[in-house]
């Protein structure tokens, strides 16, 4: 059995930034395990620009953003294994992995950082009726085919779901000569970033149909057309609104799910809303010394915030390994999402362990205009900040300081909610 101080599961943006941070915080024995043939994760297929505005103050493409961190990993001499699939992590932090050169590997870690990312929701999760012909792809699969393998999935495209990957692929396939006929979105608002709606759809005259869904898929061997219908406020198709769109390809961009089979296998407690682990202020799960960051924790819109979060996880894992971390004060403040706030990361704060500043990230459940984000320290409103707009597609955050929390020695719960003006 091999031994490492910190084993990082996943060599995408979260894993890379966590590794760099752990190393800079004094840990030399670090191993990154990556299942793909190269580091960088999903950024390798995200060839569009717009990454790094917060992190580097410039607009990079996905591969360029990844390379910045890969260069740091290499410069710092951090070890990694490629083409290596992690099969299991035990509660005692023994990682079982497999690859073609070493066969079965067993690695004992003092700390584990979960950075496996997320995967796409599939057609099976949507229950769309109709045949199962060829030509139905998740948007990310199409992205990989076009950008990494140089293959075009089809020529006449309909896209279901207005998540960012779907919008990006609408533009990408248009540039490669395909005709993207329509993007249908079940919700009355888009799940994607505004800039993607404008630069990927409006620029190319691609219509976005809100409150619409696919009610039938036609064609037996290859998809020939889909039937779209408007949906009512409860999400049910409205009879008489059906429209048929001929197409040879249907792309699904209908949400991402954190990939937590390994986490739950080792006994990590998962959150019902995010499908990611419940974590404390140190981004540590219910298992001591097991940390999580990036899309495995909760799905992000911007990689910049993944890197930021991973930096925190790496730093905290380093402190844990070095035994420098406070044992905790035993006083745990719970964070409770309410009234429009769907979840918070973290879900609890130990004031003895928290750093001077703490970023609490969350998502809202609907579009809110001219509202306030409020945090109640038990009964007292301690944070009250105005937002012109909040939407489910854009992650929100508030910042708490240690100084602020120490003023409330008996504080038990912080409720985060949206309040009308």
């Amino acid at each position: 059995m091999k031994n490492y101080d910190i084993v990082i599961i996943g060599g995408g943006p979260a894993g890379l930034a966590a590794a760099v941070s752990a190393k800079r915080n004094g840990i030399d024995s670090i191993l990154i395990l990556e299942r793909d043939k190269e580091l960088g994760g999903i950024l390798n297929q995200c060839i569009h620009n717009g990454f790094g505005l917060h992190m580097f103050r410039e607009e990079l493409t996905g591969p360029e953003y990844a390379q910045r961190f890969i260069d740091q990993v290499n410069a710092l001499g951090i070890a990694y294994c490629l083409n290596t699939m992690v099969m299991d992590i035990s509660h005692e932090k023994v990682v079982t992995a497999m690859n073609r050169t070493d066969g079965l590997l067993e690695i004992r870690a003092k700390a584990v950082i979960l950075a496996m990312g997320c995967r796409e929701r599939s057609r099976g999760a949507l229950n769309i009726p109709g045949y199962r012909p060829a030509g139905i792809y998740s948007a990310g699969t199409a992205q990989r085919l076009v950008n990494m393998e140089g293959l075009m999935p089809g020529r006449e495209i309909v896209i279901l779901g207005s998540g960012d990957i779907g919008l990006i692929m609408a533009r990408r396939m248009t540039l490669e000569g395909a005709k993207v006929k329509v993007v249908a979105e079940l919700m009355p608002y888009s799940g994607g970033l505004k800039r993607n709606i404008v630069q990927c759809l409006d620029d190319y005259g691609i219509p976005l149909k809100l409150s619409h869904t696919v009610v039938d898929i036609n064609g037996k061997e290859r998809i020939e057309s889909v039937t779209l219908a408007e949906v009512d406020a409860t999400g049910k198709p409205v009879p008489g609104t059906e429209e048929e769109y001929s197409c040879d390809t249907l792309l699904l961009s209908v949400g991402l799910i954190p990939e937590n089979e390994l986490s739950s296998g080792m006994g990590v407690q998962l959150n019902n809303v995010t499908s990611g682990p419940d974590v404390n202020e140190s981004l540590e799960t219910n298992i001591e010394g097991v940390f999580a960051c990036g899309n495995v924790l909760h799905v992000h819109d911007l990689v910049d915030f993944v890197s930021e979060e991973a930096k925190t996880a790496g730093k905290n894992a380093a402190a844990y390994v070095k035994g420098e971390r406070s044992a905790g004060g035993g006083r745990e403040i719970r964070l409770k999402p309410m009234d429009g706030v769907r979840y918070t990361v973290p879900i609890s704060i130990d004031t003895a362990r928290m750093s001077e500043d703490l970023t609490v990230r969350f998502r809202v459940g609907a579009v809110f205009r001219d509202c306030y984000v409020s945090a109640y320290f038990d009964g007292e409103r301690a944070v009250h900040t105005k937002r012109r707009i909040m939407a489910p597609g854009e992650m929100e955050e508030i910042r708490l300081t240690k100084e602020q929390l120490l003023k409330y020695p008996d504080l038990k719960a912080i409720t985060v909610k949206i309040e009308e003006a």
Partner: protein
Amino acid sequence: MEIRNLTCIRCPMGCQIAVQIDRHDIVSVTGNACKRGDVYARKEVTDPTRIVTSTVKVVGGKADMVSVKTKEDIPRGKIFDCMRSLRGIEVEAPVYIGDVIVPDAAGTGVDIVATKNVGKE
């Protein structure tokens, strides 16, 4: 008098902005909630620009494709000309980030450069 309707992308608000144009002069910008919207709308109407990203084939590399981009913004109207300038292009490995793949793409004065390192097989 012409009116152009735009969605501002400077923040998640997504203000619906109306720009009133008389021949080549902007008469008014309305609907924006802040100054950034005004700046965005004026640029979008007079000189809209974009970065174009795509991929080209690699010969003898560890990957089949290498991603590329216009090094700077190009006029929005030149996007498809830029794409055409990439048609049939193949590069030999190794390729490094920043390598020029197509100089002066479609007469824009902007080079198309690689955005990924692809080593030799």
